[in-house]
C-alpha cells in the first residue's frame, strides 16, 4: 500500500494531461499502480452510494410511502413507452423495497457486488417508472449512477467479495466460478482504470452543470422566481428569516445558485479550487436542506461529490474501516474498449437529453414537454385547478369531474398542472366510463394554472376533446401559450 503513497493523483487533473487523456481514451490503459489507487476510489464511492441508498430506502419505507404511492392509487401515470410496467400488488411491492435495502447493504459491504448492483439498478428503475407523480430528478440520478456502477469493478478493495476470494483456493473450482460470476471478479472483468472515476464524476457533475444550464431562464434570472416565493415563505427561519423576504436576497441567491451550478463540476476538478468549492457545496446543500423540503437530495449531492477528490483522500478515509485480506489483483487485464464505447454513447445521450425541450415551442416550465430527465431542478412553483368536462355521446349529457375523486392527493396535485398527465387521465376517464356503461364520451379539460407568481390562465385548450389526442413526443398543440 505504501508503494504509491508518495505519488499524488493530482497530476492527472492538470489541463494538459486532461487533453492527453482524451487522446488516449481508446488506447492506453492505466499502469497497475494507478489501477490500485483507482480501486480505492471506486470502493469509496461504492460504500458511500450503498449507505445513501440504505438510508433513502429505509426512509421511504418508514414513512409508508410505498402504501401512499404504490398501493393506494387505483390509477398510475406511466411513462410514455413504459405503460407495460405495473406495480406489483401488496405485499410484493413492499418486498421490492426490502430487496432494495438488502441490495444497498450488499453494495456497501461489497458482497455479491455484481448481482447486488444489477438488482438494485433494475429494482430502483422499475419503481421509478411506476408513476410519474413521484418523479424526482435525484431518483433519475440514482438510476444513472447505479447503471454506471453495474459495469465498473467497484469491489476490488474494501469488499467482502475480495476477502472471500482470497480464501477460495482455486478460481477454476465450481464454487469459485459461481462466486466469480456473482461478484464481477472473473478473469475477464476489467481492472480499475482512471477513466472510470471520470465516468462517475461526469455523472455527478452533470447534475450541477445541466442544473445550471436549466436555470438560464427568464423567470430565474430576471424575476428571481420561484426562489422569491419560496424564500419569503421561510420567514420563520431563525436569524435570516426577515432577510429571506427581501427581493434583492432572492436575486442574489438566484444568481449565486446559477454560477455555483455552472462552475461546481469544474472547480471540483482542479486541485486549487477543490476544497473551497466543496465547502460551498456543503453549505449550499445544507441551506437548501433547511429552507426547502427536499429530503435526500442535498445529502446525496454532498456525499457523491466526494468522488472528485483524489484517490489518496479516499484511501485515507477508508483506513477507518477494516480492510478484508485480499488476494491482490489479477494481472490478466480484460479489454475495456467495449465499455468505453458504451459509456461514450451513454454520455452522448446524457448530453442531448437535457436539451430536447428546445424542440418544442414556448416555455418548457409551462408546457413541460421535455421537462423530466433534464435537470430542471427547483425551477417552478406551479399550481392549478383542474376539472374535466365530460360529455356523454349517447345522451348529450354533460357533467364535471375533479381528478381528486379518482386519484390520491399527491397524484391529483401533480396531474393538475402537467399536460401529459392531464391527457393520460382524460384517457383513463374515457376508459372508465366505457367500462361503467356510460359509453363513449368526449372529455375536455378546464385547467387554470399559475406559474411562478403569474396570474392564472388556461393551460389546456378547453375546446379540445382530449380523447382524440395521443400521447407521444409530437408537439402538444392543445397546450395554450403562456402569456
Amino acid at each position, binding site marked *: 500500500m505504501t508503494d504509491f503513497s508518495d505519488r499524488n493523483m493530482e497530476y492527472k487533473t492538470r489541463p494538459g494531461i486532461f487533453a492527453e487523456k482524451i487522446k488516449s481514451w481508446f488506447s492506453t490503459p492505466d499502469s497497475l499502480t494507478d489501477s490500485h489507487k483507482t480501486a480505492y476510489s471506486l470502493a469509496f464511492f461504492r460504500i458511500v452510494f450503498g449507505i445513501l441508498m440504505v438510508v433513502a430506502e429505509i426512509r421511504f419505507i418508514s414513512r409508508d410511502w410505498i402504501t401512499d404511492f404504490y398501493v393506494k392509487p387505483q390509477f398510475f401515470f406511466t411513462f410514455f413507452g413504459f405503460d407495460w410496467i405495473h406495480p406489483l400488488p401488496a405485499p410484493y411491492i413492499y418486498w421490492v423495497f426490502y430487496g432494495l435495502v438488502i441490495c444497498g447493504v450488499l453494495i456497501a459491504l461489497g458482497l455479491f457486488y455484481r448481482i447486488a448492483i444489477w438488482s438494485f439498478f433494475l429494482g430502483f428503475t422499475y419503481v421509478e417508472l411506476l408513476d410519474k407523480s413521484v418523479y424526482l*430528478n435525484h431518483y433519475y440520478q440514482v438510476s444513472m449512477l447505479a447503471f454506471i456502477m453495474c459495469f465498473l469493478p467497484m469491489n476490488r478493495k474494501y469488499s467482502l467479495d475480495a476477502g472471500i476470494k482470497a480464501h477460495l483456493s482455486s478460481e477454476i473450482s465450481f464454487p469459485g466460478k459461481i462466486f466469480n460470476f456473482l461478484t464481477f471478479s472473473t478473469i475477464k472483468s476489467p481492472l480499475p482504470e482512471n477513466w472510470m472515476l471520470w465516468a462517475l464524476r461526469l455523472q455527478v457533475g452533470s447534475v450541477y452543470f445541466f442544473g445550471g444550464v436549466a436555470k438560464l431562464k427568464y423567470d430565474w434570472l430576471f424575476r428571481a422566481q420561484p426562489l422569491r416565493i419560496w424564500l419569503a*415563505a421561510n420567514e*420563520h427561519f431563525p436569524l435570516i428569516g426577515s432577510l429571506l423576504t427581501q*427581493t434583492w436576497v432572492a436575486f*442574489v441567491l438566484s444568481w449565486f445558485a446559477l454560477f455555483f451550478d455552472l*462552475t461546481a463540476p469544474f472547480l471540483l476538478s482542479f486541485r486549487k*479550487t477543490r476544497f473551497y468549492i466543496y465547502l460551498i457545496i456543503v453549505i449550499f446543500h445544507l441551506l437548501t436542506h433547511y429552507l426547502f*423540503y427536499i429530503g*435526500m437530495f442535498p445529502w446525496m449531492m454532498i456525499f457523491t461529490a466526494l468522488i472528485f477528490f483524489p484517490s489518496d483522500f479516499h484511501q485515507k478515509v477508508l483506513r477507518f474501516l477494516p480492510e478484508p485480506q485480499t488476494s491482490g489483483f489479477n494481472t490478466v487485464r480484460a479489454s475495456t474498449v467495449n465499455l468505453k464505447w458504451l459509456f461514450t454513447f451513454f454520455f452522448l445521450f446524457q448530453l442531448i437529453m437535457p436539451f430536447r425541450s428546445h424542440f418544442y415551442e414556448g416555455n418548457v416550465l409551462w408546457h413541460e414537454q421535455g421537462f423530466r430527465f433534464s435537470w430542471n431542478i427547483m425551477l417552478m412553483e406551479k399550481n392549478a385547478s383542474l376539472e374535466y368536462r365530460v360529455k356523454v355521446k349517447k345522451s348529450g349529457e354533460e357533467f364535471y369531474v375533479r381528478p381528486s375523486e379518482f386519484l390520491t392527493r399527491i397524484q391529483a396535485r401533480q396531474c393538475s398542472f402537467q399536460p401529459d398527465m392531464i391527457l393520460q387521465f382524460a384517457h383513463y376517464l374515457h376508459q372508465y366510463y366505457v367500462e361503467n356503461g356510460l359509453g363513449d364520451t368526449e372529455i375536455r379539460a378546464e385547467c387554470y394554472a399559475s406559474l411562478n407568481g*403569474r396570474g392564472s390562465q388556461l393551460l389546456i385548450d378547453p375546446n379540445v376533446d382530449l380523447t382524440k389526442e395521443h400521447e407521444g413526443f409530437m408537439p402538444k398543440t392543445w397546450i395554450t401559450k403562456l402569456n
Partner: protein
Amino acid sequence: MKKLIGIFLGAVLLIVACSKSSDNVNPGGGNTGNTFESFDRKGMLTNLGNNVIIPSFDNFDQKTALLQTAITTYSTDLSNEQKLILAQSAWIEAIKAWKASSVFIQGPITDKFLVNSIDYQTVSYDNIEKAITEGTTIDNAYVESKGATVKGFQALEYLLFDQNKKNSNIIGGYTGANGAKRIAYLKALITNLKEKSALVLNAWKPSGENYVAKFISADGRDINSSLGVLVNNLIQLAYTVRDERIGAPYGHRTNNVPQPNLVDGRLSDISADLAIAELNSIESALQGKTATGAKGLGIYDLLDKLEAKSGSDLLSKVLSDQFTTVYTKIKAIPVPLRLAVVNNPAQVGAAYDEVKRLQVKLEVDMVNNLGVLLTFSDNDGD
C-alpha cells in the same frame, strides 16, 4: 476564478440596484395602506388567532347562547308565535355566526370531530322524528349519543321552521300529541350545540386550552403549518360554496336539472345569506379582520408584500374585487334560492360562474404566491 467572482459581484450589484429602484417606484402599496414595513408571518398568525379567530368563535358562542335563551323562553310559552319568531331569528343569527367562522376548522374542531355535530348537511328529518318518539329521557346526553343526522343547526332548523312559513305547523308540533318530547328534544339540541360552541371557544382561548398559541407558533410553510392548513381549508370552503351551496341545487351535477332540496338553509330560506357568511369567513382570513373588528395583518398583506399580481393589478385587489362581484351576483338571485334554481336559473348561473372565478383565483393565483406546501409535509427531493 477571479474574473468569475468579478462578474458575479457585478451582476449582484446591478440587480440589487435595480430591485431597490423598483422598490421605490412601487412601494408595495395594496389595499392595506402599507402600514407594515416588514411583514412577518408570525405577526399575521398572531393577528388572525387573537383578533379574528377567537372573536369569531366568541361571537358564535354568544349567538348560540342567545338562541338557547330564546328557545328556553319559547319553551315556557309554546303557543306564543312571537316567542317562536324570536327563537327563529336567534337561530338565523347563530348559524350565520357559525358560517362566518367556519373556515377556521383547523385545530380543535377537526381534532374533536365537531363539524358534523354542529352543521351536518345531510341531516335526516325522518331520523329526527324517530329520535323524538323513541326517546324516553330526552336530554343532552341523549342527543350526544345520537349520530350527526339528528343534531346541530340543521336539526334545529327543522324543529323551528316550516318551509311554507306556517308557524302554526311548528307550534302544533309542540302542543300536539308528542309535544312534551318534541320540546324536550329542541331544548336538548340547543344545550348540545351550546356545549360545542363553548368547547370550541375554550379550546382556542389562552385562558382555556390555548390552541391559539399552537396556531401562532406553527409559522412554517409545510402542510401542517397553520398557514398551510388554513389555506387548504380556505380553498376547500370556496369550492364547497361553489359546488355544494350553489352548483348542486343549480343542477350542475345533474345535467342542469335543478335540485331545490340540496340548498343549505332549505326551511329557513336563508341559503344566500349563509353562502355569503361562509365567504365572509374566507375574507376575514384574507383581510385579517372580522366583519366588525379592526384591520390587522392578513393573507392580503402577505400577498402585497410579495407584490403578487394578477395581470397588472395587485392580486389582493383582484381578489377583493372578485368578492364584491360575487356578493352582488348572489344578492341578485331572487330569494329563496330553492325557487330561484327553478325559476331564475340565469341569475343562479351567473353567481355560480363568479364564485368559480373566485375559487380558481384562490386555489391557483393565491396559492402560487404563498409558497406553502399543500400535498406533503415532507418529500424526497426535486
